[in-house]
């Protein structure tokens, strides 16, 4: 019998020790945050303006690293030497870790600067940082499985857009830690937001994958045999797998997040579901990706239609994340801009 193992097995196989690597990075993150906190502990005073906080500066440095990583990823489309890709991944890793360190530092700082500390995923500015960090890290985890570093050129621009939004919030004066209204002081809420943003990050990665798929598909459909899209972008099947994996991670965590949100509402308002706009839009996001899974696995849809669906899904996700706060009112007013 012939060897019928499908092509590209090693590319899809996880390299040994992937999780060891991420565990190492986690420990490094905690260690760096510990250092930052010790370094800053003495100079924090109540009511200190947030732009004097170390976390604000750390966020800025990390954002620079992420912007640089994006440029290098884009350059990697033309400069295909593996070293370029490694630099891109390295910068992105440093940026993602930097944001987590910044958030951990901010966590500590809220306890010193505000009257009551909180986990810094409580206002729009904080969760936007969290979103950029998680999108980067989820992408990097998937990259470490696929060992193809070209998708970064499609995912990282989303991160840069997130950074742009964050800067806009700063310019509007709606950044910086604020005291929490009583309803936000709940462990359910922390777990809910955490899971939610893993979901959002994963859906962002899937969207980047969708764009990459369409780019390559178009090049192939035009019969090109050379050019960036054909030479460097991963094959269509591989990209399809990347999208699916991101959506699978996202769907599971987003389901958990929605349930945790319901549990929080149950403890705070006396009903697990009240059709508040944010809740309703999470349901819509959830249904969008449930349809994706069904079309893919039951109807066997594949290819460009699924790529478009991943992009549409992220558009719906973005509306759930930002649009609801900007255009619709509801219980989740903590995210209100301005």
């Amino acid at each position, binding site marked *: 019998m012939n060897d019928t193992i499908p092509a590209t*097995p090693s590319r899809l196989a996880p390299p040994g020790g992937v999780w060891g690597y991420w565990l190492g990075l986690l420990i490094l993150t905690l260690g760096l945050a510990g250092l930052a906190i010790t370094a800053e502990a003495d100079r924090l005073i109540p009511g200190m303006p947030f732009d004097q906080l170390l976390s604000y500066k750390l966020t800025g440095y990390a954002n620079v690293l992420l912007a640089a990583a994006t440029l290098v990823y884009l350059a990697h489309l033309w400069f295909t030497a593996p070293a370029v890709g490694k630099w891109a991944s390295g910068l992105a890793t440093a940026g993602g870790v930097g944001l987590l360190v910044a958030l951990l530092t901010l966590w500590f700082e809220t306890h010193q600067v505000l009257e009551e500390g909180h986990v810094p995923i409580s206002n729009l500015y904080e969760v936007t940082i969290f979103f950029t960090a998680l999108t980067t890290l989820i992408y990097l985890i998937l990259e470490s499985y696929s060992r193809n570093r070209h998708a970064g050129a499609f995912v990282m621009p989303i991160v840069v857009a997130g950074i742009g939004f964050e800067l806009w919030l700063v310019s509007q004066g709606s950044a910086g830690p604020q005291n929490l209204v009583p309803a936000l002081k709940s462990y359910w809420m922390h777990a809910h937001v955490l899971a939610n943003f893993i979901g959002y990050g994963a859906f962002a990665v899937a969207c980047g994958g969708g764009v990459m798929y369409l780019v390559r598909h178009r090049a192939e459909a035009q019969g090109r045999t050379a050019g960036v899209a054909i030479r460097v972008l991963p094959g269509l099947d591989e990209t399809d797998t990347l999208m699916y994996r991101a959506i699978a991670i996202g769907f599971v965590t987003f389901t958990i997040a929605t349930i945790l949100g319901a549990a929080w509402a149950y403890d705070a308002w006396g009903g697990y579901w009240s059709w508040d706009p944010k809740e309703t839009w999470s349901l819509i996001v959830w249904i969008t990706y449930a349809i994706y899974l069904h079309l893919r696995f039951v109807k066997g849809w594949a290819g460009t239609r699924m790529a478009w669906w991943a992009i549409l899904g992220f558009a719906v996700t973005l509306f759930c994340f930002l649009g609801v706060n900007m255009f619709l009112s509801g219980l989740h007013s903590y995210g209100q801009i301005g």
Partner: protein
Amino acid sequence: MAIDDSRLTPPATPQQGPLARLIHLLSSMPVAVFLLCTVALASMIGTILVQNREEDFYIANLGPTWYKILDALDFFNMYDSWWFLAIMTLLVLSVSAALLRHGPRFWHMSRPLRVMRPWPKKSDGGFSLTSPLASDPDATKALLRRLGFSEFQRGEEHGRPLLLARQGRFSKYGFFLVHGGVVLICVGGLITSQLGFRGVMNLPEQESDNRIYVSEGSSYRTLQLPFLVRNDDFDISFYKSGMPSEYSSQLTLHRDGQDILSKRITVNDPLRYQGVTFYQASFGDAGSAVEFAIRDLTSKGFPEQKIKSEVHKELEDGMGLKLTIKELRQHNVMNMAQEEGKSELRDVGPSLDIHFSSPSSGNITYRIYMSYPHMLAFGRTGDREMTYDDLGFNPADSVKMELLAAYLDELSKVEGERGPDQNRAAFAAAMTAMGLPLSRAAELGPAIANAEQVLRRHKLPMLFSFSGFEPKMYTGLQVARDPGSPLVWSACALLVIGLYMMIYMHEKRVWIRFDRERQQLEVCAVLSGKDKHPVNTTLERLRRELAAAPPIPSGK
């Protein structure tokens, strides 16, 4: 993915009869996707059209025609409307139909591996390799067991041994858990909406009640609990910014003069008793006692009247003049920064809002600050913002107020042009009329002159000064009975576990043919993976492990 299920599938159940056809239709993917899209779209409309507002609001925004059309279709209480319920019911039926239709097959596929299955016609991949294991099915089996395979069958094909190994037998159960979970969540929601309630109860301190107000569209219905709830104590703490940081109430449930249960509830930490839950939802003023004084600027001598009353009370003089005590605020945070664009928030203490109306002066809302009695703050109907000014002294200061009255009185007598000389003369006359020594003119003059300007600017009929209060708060409770929730939470757990199983657990079946003469192993696999990656890794790993197997000791 090519899955050779032919041998695992039970004989096809006849797809005839109206019920079978209905199940078939309901569970078909186009119908399922259509229903899911419909739910998504309908819910979207509900977030854009604000729900459950009063009629005027809609008419003002949509016009009467659209209001009538949309109201007839229940669009303003959409999530409770018959048609939304109908869509949800159809969705539940569709998922149930899918369970009925695919259930037996998946159940069948999850049965233990009891008999040998022949080499599959179509596989997901395979390879062959030379290995000493070719002569040792037992060792191969042990190796596979180490790799996580748990079920085995041995057979023979043309005299050669054949081994079938399988893992992930239960992965198909994920389908039941996920879709069953969705059905149960909806059923739980239905139970809650039919048998449960959710209403509000506002309880002043030290009072007991058992009535709950349940909103129904834009009206209310009252429910009575079989026991009473007493608010023993309401407590609220504020941030320096004046924003509430936490509020809580000590609640006691009692019946027939007997206390049943007592607990301090806070936001996010409710009290549960006999299926009824009491949530700390809001708070408000239950008629705090307030004391203030009024200076009537329309009467001669600006007479003062001291008033003791309660928030929410209305006072009338029988001649069209009306005072409503609107709101007591214990904290008022203001930006005290001198520079533009800077912020320096400070709490300026308690304030009281009093609504004044009279036929001659119209409506004016005054805000009086206890710690800043000389500050005037008021707004007339139609004003966007409050007007602030500084009287220079407390309206409760009788000497200054009476002098001011006398001064204005003297000024009104002045005929013709009014200049500094006339002002001075009027002031001196007022001092004399009041019996004040002229030596105090330098001290009192500027204050009175300023106050006269201020009053002329604003033409206020009254001045107030706020002297004391005794807060009396009510606690705003959300009271709910939610009989569906245990089912919902269990179903959520099933859903999550099932999702994990469906996405990350795969059924893997591997056939191995042993060719002793040529020392060859031939392997082929059938996997129910959704993702190509587990297929590839499984095969790759299998090959690596088989190739690395140690040589069989001779003699065996």
